[in-house]
């Protein structure tokens, strides 16, 4: 089994008529994701690559059986759209947009949590379960089905490692990107926990970076509860102090959030540390006894 999505996942695209929304809808359809509806206020009755467009999420759910949503709604309107999707009973919501005001993000997450809605992002490339479902921007051809579960803050880094694994003939169960922060609906610990319970996943790859303490929380959880082998690559070892490197959360303050502190915590939790994509692959190979 994959995590978060499966063969029956039916997807609603919020902001489907926008430039990014329509292009990504095509890419989802090409991959084989069951995109059943789109929403853009004022565009009811239109179609995007054959997908019917509705004004409201409620209308889309009356006409189709979507259970997951991916949003391409621009930052300042993202909150309204997300709350609407949550209100209507969507269970998995992927927020791709960067630049959503932080208080709006907190509103979305705090509205979602008590309603049992899983939010991925914001600012995330989403996820891909090769051969099953894609709910994000991952280039489909860089991934093949298999037994490695990958979780990454960075979308691009998750493609990079997916591609390196695939080139070596090693498939993935699900590859999940969380977003660059500084606020996350889903954390590394959350995804590691899901992989830990997933029969198909034999090895977990955790891709982290400088800044914050999310990797430390994940390490604590791994030490406590994870029996499966975990391989980790932490980027930003050579980053300067006090500068945000592309992700708002990727910043070293004093001795806090350094790659070393995370590597140390993961290593003492029994995680195998890799320093390059090739090392990730070699370690995974060994662990899978390939």
């Amino acid at each position, binding site marked *: 089994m994959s995590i978060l999505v499966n063969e029956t996942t039916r997807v609603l695209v919020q902001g489907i008529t926008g430039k*990014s929304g329509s292009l*990504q809808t095509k*890419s989802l359809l090409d991959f084989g994701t069951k995109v059943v509806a789109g929403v853009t206020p004022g565009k009811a009755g239109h179609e995007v690559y054959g997908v019917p467009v509705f004004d409201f999420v409620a209308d889309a759910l009356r006409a189709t059986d979507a259970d997951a949503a991916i949003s391409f709604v621009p*930052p*300042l309107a993202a909150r309204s759209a997300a709350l609407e999707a949550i209100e209507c009973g969507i269970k998995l919501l992927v927020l*791709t947009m*960067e630049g*959503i*005001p*932080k*208080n709006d*993000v*907190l*509103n979305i*997450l*705090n*509205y979602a949590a008590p309603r049992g809605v899983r939010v991925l992002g914001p*600012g995330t*490339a989403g996820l891909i379960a090769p051969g099953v479902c894609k709910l*994000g*921007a*991952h*280039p489909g051809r*860089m991934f093949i089905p298999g037994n490695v579960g990958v979780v*990454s*803050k*960075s*979308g*691009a*880094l*998750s*493609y*990079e490692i997916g591609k390196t694994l695939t080139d070596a003939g090693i498939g993935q169960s699900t590859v999940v990107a969380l977003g660059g922060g*500084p*606020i*996350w609906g889903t*954390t590394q610990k959350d995804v590691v926990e899901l992989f830990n319970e997933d029969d198909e996943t034999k090895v977990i790859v955790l891709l982290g*970076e*400088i800044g*914050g*303490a*999310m990797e430390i*929380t994940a390490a604590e959880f791994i030490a406590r509860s994870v029996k499966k082998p975990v391989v980790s690559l932490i*980027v*930003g*070892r*050579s*980053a*300067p102090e006090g*500068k*945000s*490197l*592309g*992700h708002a*959360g*990727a910043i070293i303050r004093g001795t806090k959030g350094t790659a070393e502190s995370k590597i140390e915590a993961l290593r003492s939790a029994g995680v195998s540390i890799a*320093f*390059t*994509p*090739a090392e990730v692959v070699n370690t995974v190979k060994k662990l899978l006894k390939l």
Partner: protein
Amino acid sequence: MKLYEFQGKELLRKFGVKIPDGILCEKDGILIYGSPVILKAQVLSGGRGKAGAVVSCNSQGEEDAALTRLFEMTLKGEPVNAVLVEERVELSREYYLSVTFDGEAGTPLLIVSGAGGVEIEETADKHPDRILKLPFDSVLGPLDCHLERAAKFVGTPRPREFADLLSRLWRLWCEAGALLVEINPLAETPNGFVALDAKIELDDDAEPRDRAFRAVLQKQQREISGRESAQSDTITYVPLEGNIGLISDGAGTGMLTLDLLRDRGGRAADFCEMGGLTSPEIIYSAMDRVVADPKVRSLLIVLIGGFNRMDEMAEGIVRFVAERKLKIPLIVRLCGTMEEEGKKIMKSADLPIYDDLEKAVEAAVAQAAMTGGN
């Protein structure tokens, strides 16, 4: 956007929080003020107290001398161009309070301590029991029980006023679009609470909601710092010490490349990341910015497209190389969305491409070494 103390205090005052009487004195200003006063250098960096940039004065003579000295100071690269002059406040106790957020838990956070004036992160490490962190629901705001608990924790004899103050900070946080609202220290005086300092950071993403207000703050900051505020495009550019120009279309792969370069004995001249949604124009201007650095001996561009389209990236690169007659070796790793189209465009312009990141990194290090320089 970080605010100067005086801007933060003005904002606090607007939301009904008492601040000391004071005036802002700029560099060429003359200060005539009744003593005793506190002079506080207005800079955005922290640690002013330790650096001697907060001075207590008892006479006009002391004030003049202190002011002259403060205006000669540079704190962490920031010249002191404004000084806040405030009345001294008689206080019985000091507290710490702030509103911020916990990014992992995805909640806003109220933090209070009965030990005001301290370095809060240090206290959090050494004496976590002296700090109370209360997560709450951002839709509802802090509940009465949160506010009452905070007041009880710090042990103030004015629990109602304390709770009222906290709810005002939360309102400010929401309405001004803040990331951090911190009062450290908050003074308890016979006449109630007074904010002796204000550390406020606003969310740049919330700026479009309140442009007029932000413009006022930005203008004040320009006048004091003498610098234009950083322009807001999607490009992150951080200058570094090495000689290999680096551009990436993702923060994670950018940082990975930075590490791989160093592991192979090379050093990046910059960290330049374009974000996940780019265009030919954006990569063109990223290249422009990176090669403007005279240290750059080779240019490494690392692209792995998800939302990004490789045809658009190739188009921007080819146009830049042709129009700007790029002289240094160019190493491009390009794969992902619309990869075939991108490769075709690069090929027709006779520009080589790499598929493997580590090979591209090796080439960039070798080329930079061959072209010499440091």
